[in-house]
């Protein structure tokens, strides 16, 4: 956005413009480097800590002196903190709830996009309204509810993954329905109309025609909602009670309690393993995710 200066001499205009551009780039790079240090430093530090065998906060240098996998070994062999189990719990709970949530939301979005019925607009608005009240605000009530459900059906009660998944599913509808409906709206209705003429049912249109067309967008929504659920802390924290049923995020938090400075290295290794998959997904699928973001999805 540099303003060309009015100058009598074409030559001096040229040099000053060129000089301004160069200087501008240099200054911007200097700012960029400072910002990048701010952005990347914690990440570098955690990588360094993960490979630093002396597991204490106090004795850490950015480049560890004798890097080793000792922290990772501790992580996987600890009896007190079953890290692999937590990782498995997280992946299990997140995958199941993502797939189920996507299923119920997609069929609902299909109906919102393709059918016209009275109350359609209002129903959509109600969904938006409940997005304003995140489940975070009703933690007390959710705890109370799951406790009651568990009195009769222990399988869905407190300290069960099934109960946690139910709660995640309850919040799924209001979060993604607008995004998915928007995606359905981008597919021309002529496609389903011609199929209708050929005698296809709605279900056939949905499964054979629209679903394959939607697949790339569904992948993005699935990833976003996977990341959101994977990073959830509070619901898992209040509903899961025993160490064996913890998800990764709840488990990692234990490391930081009490003797944080001694468990720093092990925590770092765990944090790295927890963060790495998501980080890779983000950086590889940067453009698709940003596309999804600008259409209204919010990071959890």
């Amino acid at each position, binding site marked *: 956005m540099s303003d060309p200066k009015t100058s009598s001499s074409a030559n001096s205009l040229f040099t000053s413009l060129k000089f301004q551009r160069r200087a501008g780039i240099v200054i911007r790079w200097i700012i960029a480097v400072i910002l990048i240090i701010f952005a990347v430093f*914690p990440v570098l*530090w955690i990588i360094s800590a993960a490979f630093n065998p002396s597991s*204490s906060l106090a004795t850490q240098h950015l480049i560890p002196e004798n890097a080793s996998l000792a922290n990772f070994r501790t992580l996987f062999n600890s009896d007190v903190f079953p890290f692999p189990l937590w990782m498995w719990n997280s992946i299990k709970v997140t995958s199941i709830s993502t797939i189920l949530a996507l299923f119920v939301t997609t069929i609902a979005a299909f109906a919102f996009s393709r059918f016209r019925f009275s109350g359609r607009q209002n129903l959509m608005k109600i969904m938006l309204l409940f997005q*304003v009240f995140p489940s975070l605000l009703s933690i007390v009530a959710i705890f*109370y509810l799951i406790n009651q459900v568990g009195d009769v059906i222990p399988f869905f009660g407190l300290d069960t993954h099934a109960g946690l998944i139910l709660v995640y599913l309850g919040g799924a509808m209001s979060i993604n329905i607008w995004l998915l409906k928007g995606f359905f709206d981008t597919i021309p209705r002529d496609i389903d109309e011609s199929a209708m003429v050929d005698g296809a049912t709605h279900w056939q249109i949905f499964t054979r025609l629209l679903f394959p067309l939607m697949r790339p967008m569904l992948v993005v929504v699935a990833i976003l909602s996977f990341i959101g659920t994977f*990073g959830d802390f509070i619901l898992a924290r209040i509903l899961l009670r025993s160490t064996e049923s913890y998800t990764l995020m709840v488990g990692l938090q234990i490391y930081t309690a009490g003797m944080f400075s001694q468990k720093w290295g092990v*925590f770092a290794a765990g944090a790295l393993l927890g963060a790495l998959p998501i980080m890779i997904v983000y950086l590889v699928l940067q453009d698709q995710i940003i596309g999804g973001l600008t259409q209204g999805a919010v990071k959890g």
Partner: protein
Amino acid sequence: MNVTGSAKSTTPVAYILRLLSLLIIDGFLVWFGYRQALLGNYTLVVLLAIVGMFISAVFLFNRAYPLRWMAPGLALMIMFSVYPNFLTIYVGFTNYGDGHLLTKEQSIIQIEKARYLPEGGSAYTWTAFKSDAGEYALWLLDETGVGYLAFEGQPITQVQPGEMGVGELDSKGIPQSITGYQRLNALLAVADPNLGEIKFGADENIVQIQSPSRAAAYEQKYVYDPEQDAMIDQETGKIYFQVDGTFRTVDGKVIIPGYQAYIGIQNFKDFIVSPALRGPLVRIIVWNFIFPLLSVFLQFSLGLGIALLYNDPKFPGKRLVRSLLLIPYTIPSLITILIWRGMLNPEVGVINRMLSSLFGANPAWFADPWLAKFALIVVNLWLGYPYYMLVCSGALQSIPSEIYGAAKVDGTNIWQSFRFITLPLLLVSVGPLLLASYIYNFNNFNLIYLFLQGGPPISGAATRAGHTDIMISYVYNLAFEGGRGQNFGLAAAVTLLIFLVVIGISLIQFRYTRMWEEVSENV
């Protein structure tokens, strides 16, 4: 296409299948609701009735065909998202919490299990046996000379010699041996410190040693009288009337546990009247408004600044810079918050080691209220700016470049074109996101709780409260981490206050969005 979305003519088989599955679902809901009603969870029963009627209507009437597609999602949403919101309101007016966790029905069952040792109850003479593992057995003889064998936690049974390892009886009717156990002589038994404490038997029938010669059976202490809605103490004859979910006598004695009961606006009164509750709450509310304001302003400013600086397609290495600056966004925020906590650790964290070696400073990030707040804002800036970097980059590209050309003709400088063109147009699209982000940070529990658990603590507070606590983390402390017991009712009442604030901001957001839409139409 069938735009009304009604069902096409269905085959009889499909229709019967639909009815059958509906029958199964409704049958399950009725069974579940019945079991919940037995436990006294009537709000849940109402919910199940609503969900059941909704599903039945949707699958029975063809007019509701489009809703069939949404039925699973809507049913889940009603149960686990809509209902908890209303339940929060209900809980806010109850005393649900430690000491009042059960429903009235459950609590009566619990209280009626209490036993007491009557002076003149059915009595036994006793003989003690002890195993090598240190477990006790008691041989009981009632007045008619019938023998019983009693262990801790197992029902007392009438035993003949030869059964359960019991040997021949001696002249007094006491077995000479019990397999695996040694008989204790009377002196040893009386001197044994454990023996008198043990409750032998199980369930209704419990016997305890009262004196060297006598063991007595326990009897039910409280009996519920539905007519008076009161508990009657069988031992003393006192009557405990129910008051706000607790059975209590006129002179103030109470029975534990109490039960959940509607207590009106007591919770709200509590934190308005009690200075120890109100003091921290006022501070927390003030900080709760400032924290998201500062966070969002700084995140947006930095994000916008980066977008402006590096949006230039001619800038070399633009993509690299963007990827590196995006990194904070790509790590689950929970993990990075904990990493920052480690780095800022005043004793051993890397930041203080650098600060002390460079400037000799050693700021107490975790102990000083202002430093803790400052650190929180910096961490939140780190967490949040990439989002605005992304959003602003997108929004800047959508501003047509002709506008700048026209402005240049009018002689504006860079600052003026930013102030009067870029910023207003940007706020059209980003403004609602800023408000959404304000709401998000208003309830940013993860950051507050994971960074310092709300600390450093406010001294003199009646419940656990810290200088960096916001309302939602204060609620969490009240509900789940209370050092003085969990108080779900009070927590829900504070949540209702948060609801009001969120509704207020959402209304502003709604009006703001419309306002800026009008502005953009005029440009």
